[in-house]
């Protein structure tokens, strides 16, 4: 398909917008799972701040 056309630009836009919504929803899903990592334990921030 010839990319340098208005039709392709519309198609590109629709696909890009849809896929970016899907992917960012996936990032949102990953973020919603992050609190489960807290079960691994807590970090001592005071000792971490004493680092370099």
């Amino acid at each position: 398909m010839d990319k340098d056309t208005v039709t392709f630009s519309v198609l590109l836009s629709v696909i890009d917008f849809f896929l970016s919504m899907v992917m960012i929803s996936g990032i949102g899903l990953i973020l919603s799972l992050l609190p489960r990592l807290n079960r691994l334990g807590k970090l001592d921030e005071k000792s971490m701040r004493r680092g370099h």
Partner: protein
Amino acid sequence: MFDQLMSFVAAMGAQTGLAQIWWGNVVMIAIGIAMILLAVIKKYEPLLLVGIGFSCIISNVPGSDLVLPGGLFHYAYEGVQLLILPPLIFFGVGAMTDFGPMIANPKLVILGAAAHLGIFVALIGAKLVGFTIYEAGAIGIIGGADGPMAIFMTMKLAPHLLPQISVAAYSYMALMPLIQPPVMKLLTTKRERMIRMKQMRVVTRVERIAFPIIIGIVVNLLLPPVAPLITMLMLGNLFKEVLVTERLAKTAANEVMNVVIVMLTIAIGSTMSADRFLTGSTLEVILLGLVAFIFGTGSGVLGAKMMNLFLKEKINPLLGSAGIASVPIAARVAHMVALQDDRENFLIYQAMGPNLAGVFGTALSGGIMLALLQ
């Protein structure tokens, strides 16, 4: 002998810039001076405009060796051309960014993509007025309101449009407090603007450290074209969040950032020669950039209103406009507009969530565009 002397002087004069200067150079020098004055007097993005303005002036003085191969300005441009400087900007940004608001409220992340409809409106508009699909893609990304991303995409798709796109992108980011509020008020009712958001949960250190590592892996797996930018953003953020590398985080946020800003602004200004900038396409790019911002603001607000159709706890639709990636300006604008209707409705922290998500939204839109076009 007098004739010989005069011909010698004439030959010397012909080698200076004075013999090559034309009205376009004078106009661009005036624009460069105007940029510096705006920065100094109006405090209008001084970190960017002083460097861009000065190098714009110098690049329009014919005969300046600085912009020629071998000159410092030329090597600054090489840093942009080789895509070294934009990822380093993101490195510094990551080291000074708190992604807590984004992590705390994952459902607002989708607004970071909803607010990018403006990219595609501008892309289609650019194609309609006659730009190539690659130029249109670079122009469209102005709507993402992310300077380094705009530069990155422009260098990949249409490097000859760097001066127009970078000036448009950074100018509109600074003008967001003027551009966004009318669109936000047009698309919302006073009652909607007065919706108060719940206080966000505390994000733990474990989550803050896991976030950049996981996102770094995901972006490199799924979107290699834009991985350099997001990877460096995450590296800077990791230095900040692990706490044991405080000096590296401070260096990234200060010294590295300052040096890169100097080189980036020199590079952008050095491309603003009269023959490249004073063209009809400059005006078209600037107008299309404005269209992108307006539609992006609108689509973000409408995206938030659509979410409210499915949510029990409604979100303030002003947060949708913060999905444009200009951090933290778009979040501040949402906060200020909310305060106009309710002086105790403080949206800034919640607005930072979609605002930060907008950085990822722009990267995703750009990465998919590169994958489809290249």
